[in-house]
């Protein structure tokens, strides 16, 4: 049924909102399975364009629809203009496939990719007719389930969710859906379903854990109830070649942020950069065979008609067969005019030949992430890359005709001094000098873009104990760097520190923040990750009204013996290993990558002792 027939008022409001194609569904590849016994809606708590760019959602929506008796539809966060109109006209948040309000599904699933989408979660539930607070949801209301990287510490969201899925979803999502289906048929209570769900590996039921606090606000105890495990161990998929991967996906009709086909190369990372959560939480290493990547890439290119395919991983250059894989894929994609893009290229294993080959189809820019301006600080963060390697890579690219490069850095890293910030400016000068030496064609000029983001300490990294810089300190550092970048052809841009501050509060937050999220949503907070939408003053007022403190969460260094809010989660990498990394960071000692020498992070025990570093 056409959505406008279902909601005639949509016909009136769509002409008045930005990008109405976000709300119409009907895309090529959407799966409509109306008569399944268990109905799920997979929600992405950000805009359609961002949600449609997400590979995990593509995989899991496909997986559910591929499961007998289960149907899975999609919903995205309406932009603020659309939300206002929907509320005015009494239109609930609906699934794009059938226009079904969220409240009419058996389960509402969220993928939690970013801490600053939390108010959107609350808003989507409310707009979909579901009570946002789990404790107040009735027996006949949907079960609300969250997954994705933010669930490694989902405590700030514990009040809103019945279940969190920890780790990779390809297996556990199906197990959980089948359990829900069985419970639905047996007509057991929601409480009993949750008790049974907690027995599935990787399933965390927050209501089964009681949290105690010290008078200073830190945790004093975590007590599991009703047979819930002391620690929930992250789920992984052992065999990436045989795991579920859809043959098709929903192709957006309006432009997505990453509007392309996507296939993973491997999971995990050999690098162990100390600030990086993904590099630690997606261990152990497992890779797809090149023939699997090739087959899936061909299928998705042919199916979607997309002009570009992205080979995804945390560090593309670390995939052993990258060059031969790209050669073979190009044979298929080049005649179709389909370009290949590789994110996360490292400057030290940079191959200008490979990049030139890829450019034959589709031109793209050059981006490197030195992350810090001096070797000393790069050693602290374990970003094992030298300035020489970066200049060398830039030189090769300039000689081959590139006339620009983007350099990404982080600001506010532990132990950072003015010297390190000056180092960023100096490195950009050296890149400019390299261009003067090596450029193939100087007439076109050069554009060097330096971007800084503010460091946000994340759980399950060696920096999880670190303090974040204060907002004032970050601003001072930004202006210091701005004053030190002089060359005209070097442009400097930075990430708004307020956004990073709020991100930091939630990244390492605890359950006490649930009330703040609820209250901030009531006071109109939405899309907090969007500079122009974020209402920092409202957040400050909310925290202070609830006697909570930004600095307790963001700028406070954690004690090494402190119980951390995410201690009931086991991601594989051990606390002992992380702590050793933290200590060596403070001493400026880098560690070898996993290929060079195993550092015994602990993650391999999740995969029967297997970690494929090669």
């Amino acid at each position: 049924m056409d959505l406008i027939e279902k909601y005639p008022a949509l016909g009136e409001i769509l002409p008045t909102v930005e990008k109405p194609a976000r709300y119409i569904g009907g895309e090529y590849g959407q799966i409509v399975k109306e008569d399944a016994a268990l109905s799920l809606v997979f929600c992405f708590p950000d805009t359609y364009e961002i949600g449609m760019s997400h590979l995990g959602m593509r995989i899991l929506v496909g997986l559910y629809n591929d499961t007998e008796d289960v149907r899975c539809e999609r919903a995205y966060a309406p932009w603020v203009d659309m939300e206002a109109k929907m509320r005015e006209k009494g239109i609930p948040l609906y699934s794009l496939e059938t226009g079904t309000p969220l409240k009419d599904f058996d389960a509402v699933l969220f993928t939690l990719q970013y801490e600053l989408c939390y108010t959107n979660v609350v808003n989507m539930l409310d707009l979909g007719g579901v009570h946002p607070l789990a404790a107040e949801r009735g027996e006949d209301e949907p079960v609300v389930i969250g997954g994705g990287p933010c669930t490694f510490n989902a405590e700030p969201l514990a009040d809103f969710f019945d279940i969190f899925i920890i780790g990779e979803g390809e297996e556990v999502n199906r197990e959980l859906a089948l359990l829900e289906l069985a419970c639905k048929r047996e007509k057991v209570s929601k409480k009993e379903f949750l008790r049974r769900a907690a027995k599935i590996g990787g399933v965390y039921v927050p209501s089964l854990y009681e949290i105690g606090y010290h008078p200073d606000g830190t945790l004093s105890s975590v007590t599991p109830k009703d047979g819930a495990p002391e620690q929930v161990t992250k789920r992984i998929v052992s065999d990436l070649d045989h795991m579920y991967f859809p043959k098709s996906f929903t192709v957006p009709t309006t432009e997505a942020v990453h509007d392309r086909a996507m296939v993973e190369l491997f999971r995990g990372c050999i690098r162990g950069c100390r600030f990086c959560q993904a590099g630690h939480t997606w261990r152990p290493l497992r890779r797809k065979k090149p023939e699997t990547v090739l087959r899936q890439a061909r299928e998705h290119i042919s199916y979607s008609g997309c002009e570009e395919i992205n080979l995804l991983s945390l560090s593309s250059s670390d995939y052993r067969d990258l060059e031969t894989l790209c050669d073979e894929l190009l044979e298929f994609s080049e005649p179709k005019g389909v370009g290949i893009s590789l994110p996360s290229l490292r400057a030290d294993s940079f191959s200008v030949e490979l990049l030139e080959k890829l450019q034959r189809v589709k031109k793209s820019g050059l981006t490197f992430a030195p992350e810090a301006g001096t070797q000393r600080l790069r050693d602290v963060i374990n970003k094992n890359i030298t300035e020489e390697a970066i200049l060398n890579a830039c030189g090769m690219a300039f000689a081959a005709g590139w006339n620009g490069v983007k350099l990404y850095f982080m600001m506010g890293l532990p132990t950072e001094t003015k010297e390190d910030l000056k180092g960023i400016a100096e490195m950009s000068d050296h890149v400019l000098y390299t261009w003067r030496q090596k450029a193939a064609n100087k007439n076109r000029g050069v554009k060097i873009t330096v971007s800084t983001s503010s460091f946000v300490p994340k759980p399950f990294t060696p920096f999880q104990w670190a303090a974040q810089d204060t907002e004032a300190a970050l601003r001072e550092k930004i202006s210091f760097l701005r004053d030190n970048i002089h060359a005209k052809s070097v442009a400097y841009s930075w990430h708004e520190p307020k956004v990073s501050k709020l991100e930091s509060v939630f990244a390492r937050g605890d359950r006490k923040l649930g009330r703040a999220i609820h209250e901030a949503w009531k006071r109109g907070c939405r899309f907090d990750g969007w500079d122009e939408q974020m209402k920092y003053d409202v957040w400050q007022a909310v925290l202070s009204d609830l006697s909570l403190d930004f600095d307790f969460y963001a700028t406070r260094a954690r004690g090494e013996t402190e119980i951390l809010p995410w201690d009931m989660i086991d991601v594989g990498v051990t606390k002992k290993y992380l702590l050793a990394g933290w200590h060596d960071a403070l001493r400026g000692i880098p560690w070898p990558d996993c290929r060079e020498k195993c550092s015994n992070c602990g993650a391999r025990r999740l995969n029967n002792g297997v970690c494929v570093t090669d």
Partner: protein
Amino acid sequence: MEEEKVKTRLRFQKVGAAAFISHLDLMRTLGRALSRAEIPAAKTNGYNPHAYISIPCALSLGYEGTREMAEIGLPPGFDPGWIPERINPVLPKGILVTEAYPIARKSAEIAFAEYDLILERGKEGGARAAELLRASPLVVLKKSKRREEETDIAPLIRRIEPAEYGFRATVACSASENLNPRLLSEALKKLAPDETFRVRMTRRGRFFDQTAEEEFL
């Protein structure tokens, strides 16, 4: 576009919620569908090559179209008759290619477009609108991104016919003269401020000129 390509016209519908797919998104959507259907449409030679598609006289966002057209290039010898059955299974909901044929007359010769304005007041509203729109001059405020100006739209209206659902309007639609039917609603609002003429619009097609048989494109 290379020269040996045969310029081919696709006639298609864009109805229901698909009315809210913008012109640019429609171009990309058709391009991808051509690729999925393995129709060897010519590509642009650009920084990021994509299928060469031309959709003359863009349909405003939110309007349905029952006889829209898009132009592509095909290699000589490729039978365009195959296109609908190959492309329709890979198009989003609400877009349907009904016909494909080599271009005989250029789209630059299009002079008029025909719209159905479906009114809440139905037949009665249509009769009333037709009466009001007979006025000449018919001055409305035309707003563009840059400026606003008073324009007489009477010369751009060729015919207004009342119908059961509202009325049908035939208006100028060429590079030199073009009337967005939204201005007909504006005119009605101005002429009869107390009456409501809320409409949904469908473009039924376009004509080459006024003397020839009324050939739909």
